[in-house]
């Protein structure tokens, strides 16, 4: 039986008295490609931030790689790509290469300086992401798609076992989005990287994800996309027309 990379039990989170997550219980196994879908304000981003320790849950437990989240310190095992950076400064003077190198910090102890093998890891990641040619350019000068690739490169340069992404394709054009998903699939299949992807894009979930989690403050559905599309319970929940739209857009 494969290891639970992430497991939550009855996770609750409130913000200013309003309940955002209500007894969310789910788990993610090694090699899973989990798509998390839900309407606006359903708690998807809050769930991801709570998993990563950026929010403190009101109730419930989270374990990461079998360790209670508050004791977890193997952050090099997790790569994170946020929906958008909280205070992204377009004048930030780092080059793509400098930004990607920051992704190697998690595995280092004090003092965190350049180690043997870092350059090779950065070179390889830039190559995989197809951004070697822009490695010396400042990130503020890049297009949305290039910035997102650079941020994904930062997330994967340390070869994390688990990759968590929060609506990473929002700023991308359809062609770049397709390439982005293909790249994720490559990481999932060839490196056995476990993927948790929060998205509005049910089409991508249907095409790429091995599991589908629909949340609306609580877990509404947890299974494969195919199971979702043939679930009478979901037909009752969404109505036949809405379920048809979700399942047959691709």
């Amino acid at each position, binding site marked *: 039986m494969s290891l639970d990379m992430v497991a939550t039990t009855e996770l609750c989170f409130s913000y200013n008295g309003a309940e955002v997550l209500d007894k969310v219980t789910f788990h993610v196994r090694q090699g899973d490609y989990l798509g998390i879908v839900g309407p606006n304000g359903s708690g998807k981003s809050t769930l991801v931030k709570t998993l990563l320790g950026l929010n403190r849950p009101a109730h419930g437990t989270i374990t990461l790689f079998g360790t209670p989240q508050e004791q977890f310190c193997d952050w090099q095992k997790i790569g994170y790509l946020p929906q958008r950076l909280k205070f992204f400064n377009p004048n930030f003077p780092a080059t793509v290469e400098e930004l990607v190198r*920051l992704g190697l910090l*998690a595995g280092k102890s004090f003092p965190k300086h350049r180690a043997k093998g870092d350059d090779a890891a950065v070179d390889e990641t830039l190559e995989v992401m197809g951004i070697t040619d822009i490695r010396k350019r400042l990130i503020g000068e890049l297009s949305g798609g290039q910035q997102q690739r650079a941020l994904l490169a930062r997330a994967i340069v340390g070869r994390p076992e688990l990759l968590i992404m929060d609506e990473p394709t929002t700023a991308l054009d359809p062609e770049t989005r397709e390439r982005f998903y293909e790249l994720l699939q490559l990481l999932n299949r060839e490196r056995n990287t476990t993927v948790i992807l929060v998205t509005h894009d049910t089409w991508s979930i249907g095409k790429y994800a091995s599991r589908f989690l629909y949340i609306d403050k609580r877990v509404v559905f947890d299974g494969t996309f195919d199971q979702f599309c043939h679930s009478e319970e979901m037909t009752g929940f969404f109505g036949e027309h809405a379920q048809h739209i979700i399942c047959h857009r691709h």
Partner: protein
Amino acid sequence: MTITEILSYGFIQRALVAGSLIAVLCAVLGVFLVLRRLSLIGDGLAHVTFGSVAIALFLRINPAIVTLAAIPLVLLSSFGILKLTDKARIYGDAAIGIVSSLGIACGVLLASVAGGFNIDLFSYLFGNILAIGTGDLVLALVLFTVVLLAVFFYYYDLVAITFDEELARTSGIRTRTINTVLVLLTALTVVLAMKLVGIMLISALLILPAVTALQVAVSFRATIMVAAMLAVGSVVVGIFGSFILNLPTGASIVVVNFIVFMLVFSGNKLRQAH
């Protein structure tokens, strides 16, 4: 008067050495502070330094060690800013404002009560290179080493939290510790800079070289190097200029920094236009 003759004065030598050390520190920390939109923390801590110096003078502490005596209170105040931001749910600029005005208020009250040290306090407000003694030079050298070593050891952590604090936390970086380190280093630098440019002008030394270097940035590391070189250049030109033209040194350094900024900014705009 030739440059060799000017350099023969002991106080000029001390001002140049101490000024260059302080300029490098201000420029390096300034890049992080400006990018984190914390530029005014230098101003706030400078005002606290004013209060701390007033307390030291009020307690009749030997003027030669006033700078040293001010350090604990300024460090304590920098913790105060962090705690207010963290625990009291007060925005950073508001926390700086509170601590800063409290520092000024304490200084003014003590100056008023004591009456006798107003002239000394004036030299701390606007800088006085004649007041830079050998002790200050040693202190500058020690703090320069401490601050630069800290930046060297925490460099990548500082870059990471400057880029995005949440992302840094998910890389296992103790962002609270790094923020504390940054604010403490800034506090030490501010205390050190007060005799050179004065309490009222310290923030310019933290902000101007950094924003000038950001105009021509090609990488993070290069931005820090350029800021440090511009800062040292401005301090040297400012000290010589003020001596030759008989002008206040602190103000001259700030004006030179501003002229450099305007030149780089204009040059950058012209380059972009072509």
